[in-house]
């Protein structure tokens, strides 16, 4: 029983990371209707920048994490301003290709600057390791879950209660009408990318002590984050959180009880299954167009 609970806890912890990645997809899609293929790279860069600041420049962990979030947010806004906004071909395919190119670019930048080693952040500390009924709640997993709760709460407050959140929702529902009300779609778009990048970077920094940071990890985070977003219902922030936790749980259960070699394939198989059979997901409002 304790082993089962431990596996469940591990699954929820990594699931929280996937939830943050999924929120990145959802926020950007809601604001711009663009699927940002570089979202996984935001997560990767958050972890890798923080880890290399700590390992190579001996920065203290909180400062390294903070700077990593700032840098990745800037890169996210840059992707919007210089990539998506500048695209000559303003079609879905065009934007998809631009973000695919950007994911390669960010991966390459990280490979050249942070190197080809898997780097680990030290545990964040401060919070204690807990032990309840033979189940270990490590300090880092508490940090992860706490961050998810805070970020989700902050985002809900932002979107439901603040003016800028309502402006973003208005811009996503109808860009033209929002523009008539004085809301700049370009600014909302940059804001969305920035928020997605910040959330992703936090996630990357949180998982770096546990899973390490490596320039090739972005693909995995991106695909699993996308799978989480689709599972929860693409376009729904609540769905993104639930989807992430579910994907993490399913991945952990299958690794623990079935086979750990195919662990990464589980989330991908779920993604394919969803796309083919159930694209609207749990809480989806967005229906995939069928041809």
């Amino acid at each position, binding site marked *: 029983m304790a082993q089962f609970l431990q596996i469940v806890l591990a699954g929820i912890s990594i699931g929280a990371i996937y939830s943050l990645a999924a929120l990145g997809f959802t926020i950007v899609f809601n604001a711009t209707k663009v699927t940002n293929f570089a979202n996984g790279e935001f997560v990767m860069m958050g972890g890798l920048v923080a880890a290399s600041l700590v390992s190579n420049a001996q920065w203290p962990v909180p400062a390294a994490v903070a700077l990593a979030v700032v840098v990745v947010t800037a890169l996210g806004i840059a992707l919007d301003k210089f990539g998506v906004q500048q695209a000559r071909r303003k079609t879905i395919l065009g934007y*998809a290709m631009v973000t*695919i*190119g950007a994911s390669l670019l960010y991966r390459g930048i990280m490979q050249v600057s942070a190197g080809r080693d898997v780097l680990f952040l030290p545990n964040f500390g401060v919070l204690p390791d807990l032990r309840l009924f033979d189940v270990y709640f490590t300090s880092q997993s508490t940090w992860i879950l706490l961050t998810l709760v805070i970020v989700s709460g902050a985002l809900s407050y932002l979107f439901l209660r603040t003016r800028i959140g309502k402006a973003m929702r208005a811009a996503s529902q109808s860009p033209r009408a929002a523009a008539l009300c004085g809301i700049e779609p370009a600014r909302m778009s940059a804001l969305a990318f920035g928020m997605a990048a910040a959330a992703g970077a936090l996630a990357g920094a949180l998982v770096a002590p546990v899973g390490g940071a490596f320039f090739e990890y972005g693909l995995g985070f991106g695909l699993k984050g996308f799978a989480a977003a689709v599972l929860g219902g693409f376009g729904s922030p609540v769905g993104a959180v639930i989807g992430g936790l579910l994907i993490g749980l399913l991945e952990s259960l299958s690794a623990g009880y079935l086979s750990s070699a195919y662990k990464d394939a589980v989330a991908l198989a779920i993604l*394919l299954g969803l796309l*083919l059979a159930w694209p609207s997901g749990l809480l989806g409002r967005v229906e995939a167009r069928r041809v």
Partner: protein
Amino acid sequence: MAPVEDVRGRVARRYWRDVTGVACLAVIALAIGLTVTRSYYLSMLVYSAIFAIAALGMSLLFGFAGQISVGQAAFFGVGAYTSALLVMRLGLPPLLGMVCATALAGVFGWLVSRPLLRLTTNYLAMGTLAFGVICFIVFAQLRFITGGIDPGIVGLAPFSIGPIVLDEPRKMYWLVAMVLCIVMLLVINLVHSRIGRALKALKVSEVAAAGLGVDVVRCKVATFTLAAALTGLAGSLYAHFQTAFNATVFGVGLSIELLIMVVVGSVATPWGALFGALFVTILPSFLDDFEHYKLLVWGVVMSAVMIYMPDGFGKGVVDVAVSLFKRRRLK
């Protein structure tokens, strides 16, 4: 309004221009084969030709039908492993192995295409990406079949047709050059046929094309199957040329490189795939320590091209040249 004969004439001229192009390609390939002796250069050309065959499939799928697939490496792997296993474990002649590999990759593509091609752009890209990664994981994990990542397939005999063994780049070059010319002719014929025009129509608007009587699903499935088969053929040739390889070849990087080949060349014509394959294969040899900067270079190239020249770098350059030429003629 141009008279109908004029339009037909233009279309026919374009076709014969492309066929002449294939003839020129054959002549150039012949000339290169007879004059170039450095084994290194010939190796580069062999790899370029192999990837060009796969890129031609990608060009049909992405350039003409507009279906983005970031998982083609899976079919490259199917072709390579099928050829390797049929020759090594069952002792089949390599030519038969190559045919089987192409066919198997095509069948696999056909099986996967019907469900996948129901997805639209973003979901299709993610779906094919996921499919490619799953296949890579399977290749890496099924060690008893594929040898996985360590040791992989080792000691595959080089390609041989009857008594002729193609164990040097010089000899393999003739085979791949011939196969490339044949495939190019096939693709040109397809592009200029009713199916090719149907593909161009459905790329622009599937609904409109359906309204014109195009069987959209069958066209997309057929294109995907053909692309998979061509990629499998390339994989088979690759396996015999390399004689030893492991699963790391068939990862996302290869799928992305195939996409880059089509994008860098020109999305609109098969010749772009040829140019792109040459570019992507040969560029690494000009930069020292390319492996280290590979992702960065591809990232810059892909981002720049997709932002500023979405129809392909080759086409962008041609457009600029044509507009300069037109301006001078007006003067």
